[in-house]
Every structure is written in structure tokens, then in C-alpha cells.
């Protein structure tokens, strides 16, 4: 990594080499950097500005600056409910993804040659299939006339009107877990690849019970994978749109769907902009403080040996 362009390019004079070394990285990253600064920087700054503009249902957007939008998002009970619901759904989804995804990754890891790659493909493959398609599948399963309802009716557990999980927290969480659990599996899988399974054998041969081996030997080694997977799942759920929108509908608004409604139904863009800025800031704060917490925790564990 420390070697320089001088070795590879063998320029005629050291001066030219120094010149090349200084300017080449800038030329190489230049196009992408300009592209990102303009196309990512400008839109975000404009949205930040928009969030301070005044909105009137008859006059539309006015460039008079105001804190009214933020006051509404931060102090109105309506938005408190939406933010609380969003983060509650994220928390439950994350916990369920850990409970389902981590053991599944471990089971996959212990599988033999053909089965392991086949089921790894089955587990990770859904990540590539459109979220709209996967959510539609859950609508067909848990909707009023869905398979779940028919199954429960067949077992005599539901009345003639059936059971629908549409527009319920349960329905949203089930579909969200389905959409996001592969991220947990891949994350734990990646840290399992670094684990030495013979430590488990050693513990077993020394008389430890399988569950103890799991808890004391294997789990601590994959903990980093579980923690980073949790962060991915939590952050994605908190800003997810498609699944809460299709299954939760207007009755169970989350932050992302309320942004959508402000922009495309109510047309109150400044309010929508301030909701999205708050969402973005919360996301950044959560990701940063979580990463810092994980880092500190691991440094301490390592320090204590």
C-alpha cells in the first residue's frame, strides 16, 4: 500500500513522478467526486433549505424562513406517534431477525458441501428479488382470504370471516422480518467464516454441554456479526417504505410513508422535507452512537482479556 506510482510507471525524472503522484489520484477520483458533490450534495442542501420554507394550502411554498415545520414534527403528538411506531417496529423486527437469522447462519455453516451452498442461495437469493414482489406474497398469505386465514379456519381456530393481518403491526413486522432477515444471515455468516469451529469441539470433548458450547464458545465469536447485522436491519427498517406502505397502509403510518403522503398527497413539501431531515439525522445519530458503543465494548472485552 505504501508503494508509489514511481515504481510502476518509471518516469524519466523524479520531478515528473512527484507531479504525477500528486495529480493522478485527483484526476482518477475527480469525475466521481464532482458527480457526487453536485448530484448528492445539491439535492440534500436544497431539501434542507426547503424544510425551513413556509407552506400555505392556498398560496403554496413561500421562501420565508420558519421553524414551524420542525416545531410541528418535534412537538406534535401526531408525529410522536408515527416516530414511536416506526422505531418500535424496527426494534421488534431487529430482535426477531437476530433470533431467526443468527441460528440459521450457524446451521448453514455446519451443513455439508452441496446442501450448504444450495441453502445459502435459498436464504440470500430473496435479497435480489424485488421488495414489491416479496411484500405482495405476504399480502396473498396474510390477507383476508389468504392461506393463513384458510389454514386457521380449517383448524377451527378462526371464524367464518377469517383472519386478516393486513393493516396490523403483526403483519408489518412479519413481512419486514422476511424482507430483512437475509441481511442478518449474511452478516453472521461473514463472521462465522473467521471462527475456528474446533474450539467448539474442544469444549465438547472437555465435557461442555452443546448449549453451553453455543453460548460460551460460538456466540461470543460471532457477536460482531450479530451486532453489525442488527444495525443494518434496524436502520433499514426505520426508513423502510414499500412494506409498511403496502401492508400497513394509511392506518399504520410510519415515518417513510408519512413523508410520501406529505409530498405526493398533501403536497406540503416543506413539512415533508423537515420530516425527512429529522429521519436522516436520527439515522446518522443512531448509526454513529451504536458503532461507537460497539467499538468501546469490544475494546473493553479485549482489554480485560
Amino acid at each position, binding site marked *: 500500500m505504501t508503494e508509489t506510482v514511481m515504481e510502476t510507471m518509471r518516469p524519466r525524472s523524479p520531478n515528473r513522478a512527484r507531479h504525477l503522484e500528486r495529480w493522478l*489520484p485527483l484526476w482518477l477520483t475527480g469525475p*466521481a467526486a464532482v458527480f457526487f458533490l453536485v448530484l448528492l450534495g445539491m439535492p440534500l442542501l436544497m431539501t434542507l433549505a426547503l424544510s425551513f420554507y413556509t407552506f400555505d394550502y392556498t398560496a403554496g411554498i413561500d421562501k420565508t424562513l420558519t421553524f414551524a415545520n420542525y416545531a410541528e414534527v418535534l412537538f406534535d403528538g401526531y408525529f410522536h406517534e408515527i416516530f414511536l411506531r416506526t422505531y418500535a417496529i424496527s426494534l421488534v423486527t431487529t430482535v426477531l431477525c437476530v433470533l431467526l437469522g443468527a441460528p*440459521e447462519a450457524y446451521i448453514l455453516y455446519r451443513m455439508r458441501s452441496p446442501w450448504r451452498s444450495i441453502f445459502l442461495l435459498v436464504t440470500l437469493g430473496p435479497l435480489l428479488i424485488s421488495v414489491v414482489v416479496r411484500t405482495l*406474497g405476504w399480502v396473498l398469505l396474510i390477507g383476508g382470504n389468504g392461506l393463513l386465514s384458510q389454514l386457521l379456519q380449517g383448524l377451527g381456530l378462526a371464524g367464518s370471516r377469517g383472519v386478516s393481518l393486513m393493516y396490523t403491526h403483526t403483519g408489518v413486522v412479519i413481512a419486514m422480518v422476511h424482507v430483512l432477515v437475509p441481511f442478518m444471515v449474511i452478516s453472521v455468516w461473514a463472521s462465522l467464516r473467521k471462527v475456528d469451529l474446533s474450539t467448539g469441539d474442544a469444549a465438547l*470433548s472437555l465435557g461442555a454441554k452443546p448449549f453451553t458450547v453455543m453460548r460460551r464458545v460460538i456466540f461470543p465469536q460471532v457477536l460482531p456479526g450479530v451486532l453489525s447485522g442488527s444495525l443494518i436491519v434496524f436502520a433499514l427498517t426505520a426508513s423502510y417504505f*414499500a412494506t409498511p406502505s403496502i401492508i400497513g397502509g394509511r392506518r399504520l403510518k410510519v415515518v*417513510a410513508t408519512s413523508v410520501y403522503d406529505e409530498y405526493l398527497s398533501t403536497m406540503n413539501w416543506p413539512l415533508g422535507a423537515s420530516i425527512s431531515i429529522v429521519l436522516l439525522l436520527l*439515522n446518522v445519530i443512531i*448509526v454513529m452512537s451504536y458503532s461507537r458503543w460497539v467499538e468501546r465494548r469490544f475494546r473493553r472485552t479485549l482489554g480485560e482479556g
Partner: protein
Amino acid sequence: MSVDSRRNGRLALAFHTLFVIFLLAPLVVIILVAFTPKGYLSYPTAGFSLRWFREILERPDFIDAFYHSLNLGIVSATLATLLSIPAALALARFRFAGREFLNGLFLSPLMIPHIVLGVAFLRFFSEIGIGGTFASLVLAHVIIVMPYTLRLVLAAVMGLDRETERAAVSLGANPFTSFRRITLPQMLPGVAGGWMLAFITSFDELTMTVFVASPSNTTLPVKMYNYIEQTIDPLLASVSTVIIVLTVAFMLVLDRFYGLDRVLSGKG
């Protein structure tokens, strides 16, 4: 050894079976419903019918949306790859001022919720007067797929064997020839893996695209989302079945070529 920690017990296999059923159930249900002969959502208990697949051919709006998604995926993945190759070379091989900043900048779309990107692009594109055009969709998609291409190209550059490059140069090849004939071919699997991941990410994207698409420039996920808002009928199931079949084929190619777990964990 009597006990082997590397084998799954009966309980583990039962858990695994339920997990796989949970993952596949919604997809299987869609495929079943797509073959219904009835005019409403139902399982094909009386017999299979291709009626709803023929119906797709009668819907130019869905076919147009499909081609838009395809073009959008190809163009944005290609542009992102072209931007990523030089950027990855610079980030991997040079220490320079602003290197950390640029690395963070290029990966930042992973941390910004797509809903936020969507509203930001909606405002930006309408202010500069290109709202709803295909070009604006491409620009927005390059931003969201670039982290994927960059990560995989970067991993490929890091793993390069520099001895061959040095040998070529010492044998008299100029730097450009050495790059074209030695470096680039070695990077190719990473570049191709990144391109494919970028393509599928663009092809599937809904949350941001729903804000920047227009009725004349819509993508398949946006088209389907808007359709679901109105009604859910077996047509959606047959369109979804086509998407599932195409995605699975694509996934098998990607896996054979690069390894799905490597692509998705971004570790090269």
C-alpha cells in the same frame, strides 16, 4: 469422537426447515396464484391456466415499464462502474489529502434513507428542469448503485497481484498498456460482480424511484406499486412470477460467476 459440534441436530434441522418455509412461502404463493384460471385472487385448485400470463402481453404499460427498468439498470450500472474503476484505483493505491472523505462520500448513499434521497432528487430535478425524464432517473440511480460497484471494484484492486504489472512495465510496456492488458483483466471478475449487483439494485429500487419517475418514464417496481394501491389481482401475481424467474436465473449466473455470499457481504 462421539459428539460432533459440526453436525446439525434434529432440532436444528427442524428450525432450518421452518426457516426455509418462511422464506419461500410468499414466493411460492405468488407463483401458485399466477396460474389461477379465475378472474380473482385464488389458488388454482381446479386446474392450471396461463390466462394471466397472456394478460401481460395485453398490457403495454407493464411491458414498457419492464423495458424502462431494464435500460435504467444497464445504463446506471455501466456509468457507476466507469466512475468506480478509476476511483477505486486511486483509493487503493495512493495516499492523498481527502482520500478518507472521498471514500466516505462514495459510500454515503448506503447510509442515507432512500426516502430522503427520493424527496431530495424530486426537488432538485424539478428545479433544474429535468424532472421526470429518463436522464434524471439515470443520474439518481448512479448515485444509489455506486457504493456497490465501488466496494466490489475496490476489493478486486486490493487483491491484485502487482508483480505481473511490474514485470510488464520492466519489459517495456507503457503504463497504459500495462493497465489495459494486465490490471484490467485481473480486475474483471470484481468489476463484473459489481456491475451485476448494481444492475439488480437499480432494477428493484422502489422507494427513491417512486418520487423521480413520471407516468411516461416509470419503472416496473413503481408501476406495480401504483397498481397495488388501486387493486390487487392475479395480473400482479403473473408479472411477479416472471420477475421471480428472471431474478433466479440472474442470481444463478451471479453465484456461479462470483459467489453470492461474497457479492452480498461486499468482502470480495
